[in-house]
């Protein structure tokens, strides 16, 4: 901008710029609208209702009154041993599952990004658990890890292992939780492998050639070229995986059924139970809000991280 411009001209420029700005906004919103309207009606509105519910007491019946109870639901929450247990389990599950799955999927992606025979075949194999139906594969998993007759324990007993693990019903928390974690890694690593593969496609091959010319070892190439280049992908994978772990429900339902004795309860299981067994919808929403805040914190931390990474 030149400071010598006459006022009238700059006013006209400002006006037309304003108009252009408006058109720009309208166009942008026309892009967003088809998705956003559906999203708003079927997700946002019920979600706002869920938030409101956390401050209410209601048994879910339209015949009974809804009363405003302020933060009473949240006060109750922190006196609830089941909630604490579920919170600890959910966080522990995420803390263990996220890095392991990420390492597995990144490793697979790097192996399968090389010029090798039958590459597509291997990729398909690795991806297959992800496409497989949860209902079907948990049924198989439960058979494989059947404590009495399952082949896994048959092999272990053949290897001379005494005190065979009882997997999904073992009274050792690490084993029943481990059964679920093992399943989760197996089920999800293919998914994140594909994301990493897509990310690897974006890595500039010139960088590898430059690194090779500098005499970098494969490990150095991975550490100094691949990983930094994959940062946006890693960000994406971390967020998605963490969220996936926090909102886990069906895996636990179908493998441990939150047992034994409630040892593997997770937050969403409590939400479900509070709503549909105890008919305490307000309380159930309060648990949900805690979960939501947890996930939001993780997301915001990552968001920030990415921003500073890009600057």
């Amino acid at each position, binding site marked *: 901008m030149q400071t010598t411009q006459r006022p009238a001209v700059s006013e006209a420029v400002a006006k037309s710029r304003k108009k252009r700005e408006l058109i*720009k906004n309208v*166009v*942008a919103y026309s*892009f*967003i609208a*088809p*998705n956003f309207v*559906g*999203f708003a009606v*079927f*997700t946002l509105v*019920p*979600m706002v*209702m*869920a938030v409101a*519910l956390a401050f209410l007491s209601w048994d879910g019946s339209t015949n009974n009154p809804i009363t405003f109870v302020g933060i009473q639901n949240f006060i109750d929450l922190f006196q609830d041993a089941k909630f604490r247990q579920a919170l600890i389990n959910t966080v522990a599950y995420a803390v263990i599952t996220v890095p392991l799955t990420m390492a597995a999927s990144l490793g697979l992606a790097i*192996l399968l990004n090389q*010029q*090798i025979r039958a590459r*597509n075949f*291997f990729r*398909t*194999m*690795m*991806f*297959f658990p*992800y*496409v497989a*139906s949860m*209902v*079907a*594969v948990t*049924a*198989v*998993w439960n*058979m*494989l890890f*059947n404590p009495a*007759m*399952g*082949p896994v324990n*048959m092999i272990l007993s053949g290897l001379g292992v005494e005190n065979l693990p009882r997997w999904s019903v073992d009274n050792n928390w690490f084993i029943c939780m481990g059964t679920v974690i093992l399943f989760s890694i*197996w089920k999800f690593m*293919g998914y994140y492998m594909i994301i990493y593969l*897509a990310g690897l*496609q*974006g890595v*500039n091959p010139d960088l590898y050639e430059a690194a090779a010319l500098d005499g970098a070892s494969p490990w150095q190439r991975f550490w100094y070229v691949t990983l930094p280049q994959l940062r*946006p992908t890693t960000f994406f994978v971390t*967020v998605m995986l963490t*969220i996936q772990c*926090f909102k886990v*429900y*069906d895996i636990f339902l179908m493998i441990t059924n939150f047992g034994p004795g409630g040892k593997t309860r997770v937050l*969403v299981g409590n*939400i479900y139970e509070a709503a549909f067994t105890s008919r305490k919808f307000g309380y159930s929403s309060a648990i*949900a809000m805690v979960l*939501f805040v947890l996930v939001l914190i993780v*997301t915001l931390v990552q*968001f920030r991280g990415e921003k500073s990474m890009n600057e």
Partner: protein
Amino acid sequence: MKEKSGITGGRIAVYVILILLSVLTIIPFAWMLSASLKLNKDVFAWPMEWIPSNPQWANYINIWTKIPLLKYIGNTAILTVVVTLLQLLTSSFAAYAFAKLRFWGRNLLFLGYIATIAMPWQVYMVPQFMMMSGMGLNDKLIAMVCLQAFSAFGVFLMKQFYDGIPDELCEAARIDGLSEYGIWAKIMLPLSKPSLATLTIFTFVNTWNDFLGPLLYLHTDSKKTLQLGLRMFIGQYSAEYGLIMAASVVALIPVLIVFLALQKYFVQGIASSGLKG
């Protein structure tokens, strides 16, 4: 160009690791297939027979009469196709705006989407269910479409891909006189084929395999989806290991076919220069 050196030690190690991992990954499916051809009493026989000496093909016939499997598959197929198409269209559209346009409230709206990914569906399923019922959508497949077609995931994924496409490309097109819609249709869509393929697979799989949504919404037998039917089958015939595994195999086959068909295109798409800019 990658070096095309012959067989080295490293290369062999890669193959060995890959084969080992593949075998581990695929064992549960091999077991499923093998068990689906056995009598219940032989399923857990040890040492196990990977290839049953007396294959029970009848298992694959019986499951069709025990539950209306064909109906379930049909429902699921319709649902999946509709949801996937809607998801692709609306997500790529919205993602373009988020990635390449500057407008009022952009970050706020996008944060809204991210928050949705975070919010487990169980949080709002009850108010959502009540609302849908009020709209007369209860026990209708269309309810599942509304539930799944506008997920934030699609927008997020597409935006991530679009972010990788340099802004200069769009700027150049604008200078050439293309409208934003034109840029989306003529530049972004062709460039984002790999990500579209990716989203197709993810959406297809998620919808095909969704269990909790149908559990809440669909209860008339003629409207049930495959997963719901399979779960009910497992509950009712839990000792029928052979039959359960046969039904599971049947539930996997359609998704495998679609995946294999798309996968070729999908890998091609990733390998093409689309994402390298």
